[in-house]
């Protein structure tokens, strides 16, 4: 189903051209006790029409990356260095007002727990109309806006008359869909979906993911999925990145990273799901806890918990190096990783 009203149309995508380039992004939070190194030297690229996934434990920095992209960080956050280029333009160099005009129009976001994204005192339709009034002021009549919103709702499988209802009259799943509809309202080039399906039951989860995928491919949008649920991510993304303690430790095509993870953390994370069909095997435990980002470990941040850690790992930080086929790993001992399973079972 296509959405095309006024100047919102499906776009032609060239999957080789980059849309969003995150270039060595470093972001810290300033707190009373010091500086928290939340995002450290993260680099990846989202191409036109591509679906990218970011996985990792809670607190690994994936939501911080998402908020950084839209410059929605709280007041005590500081961009230390790096660039975020959208269509070649560095977003970090823009003024607040310039960034504001790009929000939602070029990049939209579906938040974690999106059910609470709605202001309880206004109708859902009015809240969607807000973005149209802000970004396309004076270009649409009320009737045109209404038509557009009804089509948006239809695209996510919601009846048009729900536009006149208040958020508390929607169920959780419906609210989630409505949020997605609102994200599409200005036909952005990129959508960031932060845990879009947490707190929904599995059936609704599945439906929403399929909807998103379909809309994404039809409209030629790029999308960044953020989740701690690897199964979800693996299904819908083209590329996958694994984050740990504020660093991107592995990145590559989803099929590659998922089937043959090369970073010890990625391996343990991805292989921690028991397989229903495969042979019975012991779950590989991951001991310890993620580090305190106020005073992160020296060298490789994973070394205190890594079974392969050597002296070098505690001193030198491994760069995110290309190992072929678009697959990048940040580890000194990535070649030994397939032996991990044996090492653990011994």
């Amino acid at each position, binding site marked *: 189903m296509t959405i095309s009203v006024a100047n919102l149309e499906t776009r032609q995508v060239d999957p080789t051209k980059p849309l969003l380039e995150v270039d060595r992004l470093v972001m810290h939070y300033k707190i009373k006790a010091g500086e928290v190194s939340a995002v450290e030297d993260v680099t990846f690229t989202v191409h036109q029409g591509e679906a990218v996934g970011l996985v990792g434990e809670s607190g690994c920095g994936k939501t911080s990356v998402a908020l950084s992209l839209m410059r929605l960080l709280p*007041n005590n956050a500081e961009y230390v260095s790096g660039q975020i280029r959208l269509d070649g333009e560095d977003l970090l160099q823009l003024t607040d007002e310039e960034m504001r005009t790009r929000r939602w129009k070029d990049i939209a976001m579906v938040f974690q727990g999106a059910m609470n*994204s709605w202001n309880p*005192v206004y109708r859902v339709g009015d809240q969607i109309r807000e973005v149209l009034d*802000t970004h396309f*002021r004076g270009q649409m009549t009320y009737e045109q806006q209404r038509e557009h919103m009804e089509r948006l709702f239809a695209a996510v499988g919601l009846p048009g008359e729900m536009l006149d209802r208040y958020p508390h009259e929607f169920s959780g799943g419906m609210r989630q869909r409505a949020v997605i509809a609102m994200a599409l309202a200005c036909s952005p080039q990129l959508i960031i979906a932060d845990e879009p399906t947490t707190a929904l039951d599995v059936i609704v989860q599945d439906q929403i993911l399929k909807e998103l995928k379909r809309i994404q491919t039809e409209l030629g949008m790029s999308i960044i999925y953020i989740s701690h649920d690897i199964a979800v991510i693996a299904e819908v993304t083209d590329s996958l990145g694994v984050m740990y303690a504020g660093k991107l430790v592995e990145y590559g095509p989803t099929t590659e990273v998922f089937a043959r993870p090369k970073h010890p953390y990625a391996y343990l994370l991805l292989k921690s799901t028991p397989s229903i069909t495969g042979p019975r095997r012991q779950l590989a435990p991951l001991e310890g806890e993620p580090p305190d980002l106020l005073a992160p470990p020296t060298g490789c941040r994973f070394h205190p918990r890594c079974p392969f850690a050597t002296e070098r790992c505690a001193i030198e930080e491994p760069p995110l190096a290309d190992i072929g086929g678009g697959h990048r790993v940040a580890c000194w001992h990535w070649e030994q990783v397939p032996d991990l399973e044996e090492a653990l079972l011994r």
Partner: protein
Amino acid sequence: MIRFLARRLVQMALLFVVFLSIVWLLLQAMPGDISDTLVGNPDIPREVRFELRQRLGLDQPLHIQYITYITNFFRGEMGVSFSRYPADVSTVIWQHLPRTIVLFLTATVFAFWLGFKSGKLIAWGRGGRSEQAFILGGVFLQTVFYPWFAIVMMWVFGFYLGWFPISRFIDARLWQGSPYDANDLFEQMILSTLLVTVVYVVGRVLIKRFATTVTMEARLRQALVLVTVGGLILFWYLHPARTYVADIAHHTVLPVVTLGLVTFGATMLLTRSAMLETLGEDYILTARAKGLPDRVIRDRHAARNAMLPVTTSLVLSLAFVIGGGIVTESVFSWPGTGQLLLQAVMVSDIPLAAGILAVTGVLALVGHLVADVLYTVLDPRIRIT
């Protein structure tokens, strides 16, 4: 919603009857028979006193008196005033009531508007020196000894600066020999303001229906404000009695501002804490992500939700405004029911005092109801369940 309101109304009416009963009990607690107090009044002949006892039903058994009192009240009969004999209590009260209501309403609206606006702004500003100063000011105004404050205000702005008249409702010299009656003019002023408000509300509704784009709606709204407010001012400017009207208005400013200032502190502090809580909500982050301008986020999203708890507390500040109104009227010699109450108590004019107390209760009740209605209007989660 109508059902909810009807239920509240009945609840309130019942409560009020209990309140009235307490007032009646108070009446009975006064030593001696009411009519005994009249004995000392040389203007009242004995036969009249006897008739009065009969009329007041004082020769009836107690429970009949009670029922009569309650029913009489709802019929508008509250007895005869001692100090203003032979005037009816209800007549006397009715003469003074509009002025007190104007004082209340204007001061409350002023306090709410100022408090809400300032609370909203300092919460948004996220700290800094000016926030501390405002909070301190708000707390000071809330705890300052009101009679003292009113006297100081009167002295500073009335005496020292001479900007406003010191007391009373009108300047007697100005009105000598004028063809107009102050009360009449005052009532006309009230009516015209009410009319304009109604026109504004209707206008807004019509605009909503017939506007086709956002920009058109915004322009029409601005035009409406201009037409209504401008029309009101123009009307009174061209009116032949305009100097007298200006005099009345001039006298109203200082009492209203004084009462408003001490009330606004509470609203401001409450708005600030309500805003701080609202600003932590998810939908505020969403609003920022949507690229909405700061002002829209602050006013349409944060402040609008902060208004809910503030409205609830409006009810509590009502009691303060009523009490404060009495002090204001006393200090500024503003001829309303508050001043009347004090005068009545001084001369032990019990029926009048009790009558005013009962009417004050009605005012409080109406205020409660209005706050309830306001809250349901503001929060759709209550309206639609």
